[in-house]
């Protein structure tokens, strides 16, 4: 067997100069030739370590070897056995921490570009226009309500409808997709792809009710009078602020607001679309995760002259996907590491003008295993900024727990549910995704939806809780 090429086949993409002026997707994806060459780098290990690294245990050598044989239809079939949203996961999974991290090639060279190949296969299917509809089991007469149309809810709904149950999916916003439509920007995950997946779930027979806020329009208990079971996949939508003096000045956004305006409401197309957004010249984004990268890169595309990331630890501790950090650097985002904002200064109209920060140094590792940042006394300095985006995290939305008295929640407001079954503490109510784990990843939310679907099907058949 010839030795594999040492590096991943690069994915062609828009140049940084070009792409900061538009909201189009950055990478173009592999051509068939590129995909086949990349797929041939895979050694098709007998005991593939990558599979264990994938939270939903995709048969990775299985789909990669089919790409190598140009059997693209076969590849997508293998992928879809475990992952119903491969076009999305291929784009947003942190592969460097999952499947690709444990690929055997890593010992000597770059791993197989599993994510890029996954994306290739999914895009190939979409382009071919032939999407196989799965067989549905005969109707059971059972009715299920799914709350929240993010990855967890979509996967749960899609699975249950195939098992023969009648499924209604309730979504508070006016569009289904959860973070995939309101959070992750177009340049990273085109909304047409999310729309395609939502339409697929609808074609399977799921009834979608958007603009329906469970807890307000109807409570979980009211849903339980009409439905045999309820799944809660309501995500981690409550934005954190830092409670700093001056944090309510105009021009200071939560990342959720900034991204909802830009992505969901299409404020980047204002005034063609009605929702405005502040097009700041000097934008400071606080945080080091995907949400922060997405915000800072959105700011550039909205015309910022300077877009900065303010992060209290150093580069190695940043939780964002490596590819996004790399893209952000290429685009000219400036990183202020080991920096903690402590106060804002505004002008006479109440607009933010400057941010006071402290320099930090790294101490001993904390509970997350990352070195704890400690502030350096007397190191105050100011960063001028006319727009600030606070992207330090979010926690579960309290609306459903507040309106469902007998649903047990943890100390961070997350709904308590069994990891292996998705069962909450309330009979007939399942939960999964960010609402249970706190802000995590798309693939974990999908995995949770799938696990809960299996045990919900059991429950509907047997009635045993």
């Amino acid at each position, binding site marked *: 067997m010839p030795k594999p090429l040492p590096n991943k086949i690069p994915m062609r993409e828009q140049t940084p100069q070009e792409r900061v002026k538009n909201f189009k997707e950055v990478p173009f994806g592999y051509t068939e030739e590129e995909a086949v060459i990349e797929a041939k780098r895979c050694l098709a290990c007998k005991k593939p370590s990558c599979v264990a690294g994938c939270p939903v245990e995709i048969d990775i050598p299985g789909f990669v070897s089919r790409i190598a044989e140009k059997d693209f239809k076969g590849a997508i079939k293998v992928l879809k056995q475990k992952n119903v949203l491969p076009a999305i996961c291929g784009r947003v999974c942190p592969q460097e921490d999952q499947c690709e991290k444990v690929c055997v090639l890593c010992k000597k060279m770059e791993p197989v570009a599993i994510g890029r190949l996954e994306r290739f296969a999914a895009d190939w299917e979409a382009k071919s226009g032939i999407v196989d509809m799965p067989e549905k089991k005969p109707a059971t007469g059972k009715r299920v309500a799914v709350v929240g149309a993010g990855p967890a809810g979509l996967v749960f709904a899609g699975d249950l409808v195939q098992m023969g149950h009648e499924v209604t999916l309730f979504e508070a916003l*006016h569009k289904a997709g959860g973070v995939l439509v309101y959070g992750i920007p177009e340049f990273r995950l085109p909304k047409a792809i999310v729309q395609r997946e939502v339409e697929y779930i609808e074609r399977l027979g799921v009834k979608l009710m958007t603009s329906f806020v469970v807890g307000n329009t109807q409570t979980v208990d009211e849903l339980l009078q009409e439905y045999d079971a309820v799944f809660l996949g309501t995500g981690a939508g409550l934005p954190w602020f830092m409670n700093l003096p001056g944090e309510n000045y105009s021009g200071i956004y939560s990342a959720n607001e900034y991204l909802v305006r830009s992505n969901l409401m299409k404020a980047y197309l204002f*005034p063609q679309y*009605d929702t*405005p957004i502040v097009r700041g010249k000097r934008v400071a984004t606080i945080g080091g995760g995907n949400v922060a990268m997405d915000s800072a890169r959105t700011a550039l595309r909205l015309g910022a002259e300077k877009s900065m990331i303010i992060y209290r630890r150093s580069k190695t501790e940043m939780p964002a996907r490596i590819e996004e950090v790399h893209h952000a650097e290429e685009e000219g985002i400036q990183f202020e590491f080991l920096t903690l904002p402590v106060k804002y200064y505004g002008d006479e109209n109440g607009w933010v003008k400057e941010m006071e920060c402290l320099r930090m140094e790294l101490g001993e590792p904390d509970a997350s295993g990352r070195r704890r940042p400690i502030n350096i006394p007397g190191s105050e300095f100011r960063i001028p900024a006319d727009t600030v985006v606070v992207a330090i995290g979010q926690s579960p939305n309290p*609306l459903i727990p507040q309106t469902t008295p007998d649903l047990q929640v943890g100390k961070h407001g997350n709904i308590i549910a069994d990891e292996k079954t998705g069962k909450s503490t309330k009979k007939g109510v399942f939960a999964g995704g960010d609402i249970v784990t706190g802000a995590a990843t798309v693939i974990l939310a999908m995995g949770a939806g799938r696990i809960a679907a299996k045990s919900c099907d059991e429950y509907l058949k047997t009635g045993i809780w």
Partner: protein
Amino acid sequence: MFKILLKKELAPSIKLFEFDAPLIARKAKPGQFVVLRINEEGERIPLTIADAKKDSGRLVIVFQEVGKSTKLLGTLNVGDAIIDLIGPLGKPSEIEKYGTVVCIGGGVGTPEIYPVARALKQAGNKVISIIGARSKNLLIMEPEMKSVSDELYITTDDGTYVKKGFVTDELKRLISEGVKIDCIFAVGPVIMMKAVTDVTRPYNIKTIVSLNPIMLDATGMCGVCRVEVGGETKFACVDGPEFDGHKVNFDLLVKRLRTYIKDEKESLDLFEKHSAECG
């Protein structure tokens, strides 16, 4: 899609719509609001619920045409539909038996105070209402307010109807006449609500105001609606919209309301130019 079943012009540029929205109407309580979106390019606009008819499933809203979205909304007619109507949102008013309650409505705050006044009356309170407008032709819902109030006082800024002055003048008069007031609900322009709280603060009369900051999702996920109450930041869409007026930082509210003033103008100018061109 949510169909418009009834349209009424209450005053120049103030319109009332009844929407076919049985799910929301069934749950709506006084003090709550809805968010609506007219079309695919539309923004999400919050509007207080003026009435909810549970039997016929009709939801009533009243709005003043100020910006592009409300002007566009005003061009719709019976039979037309909007794409989204979401609610009921926010915490309902705290309706209990206080004793004597004064309900104050200014401008389009009057239709918003109406369901609150009615519920307070039903709860056994003595309801004294004060409603005001800039001018006679802008004064709305007088008969409705009359029907749910034990006493009703009216002011107009320019004196074209009943008494010249502000709603706060009537409030001051009541207080000086020694009327014992147990609670006040005030809904209207920010300056009016602030003025009311300034009047009642020295007397320590519980004063509840309904805040109208900029909103986006209105379900607690963005924080644009943050207001300061008693030095703490609150999300008006889920923690409110009603708050203890004596604790509200009105100056901050006013400043934050001006965040998009330039964009709002740009959007409106474009809309008016377009309307003029298309007749």
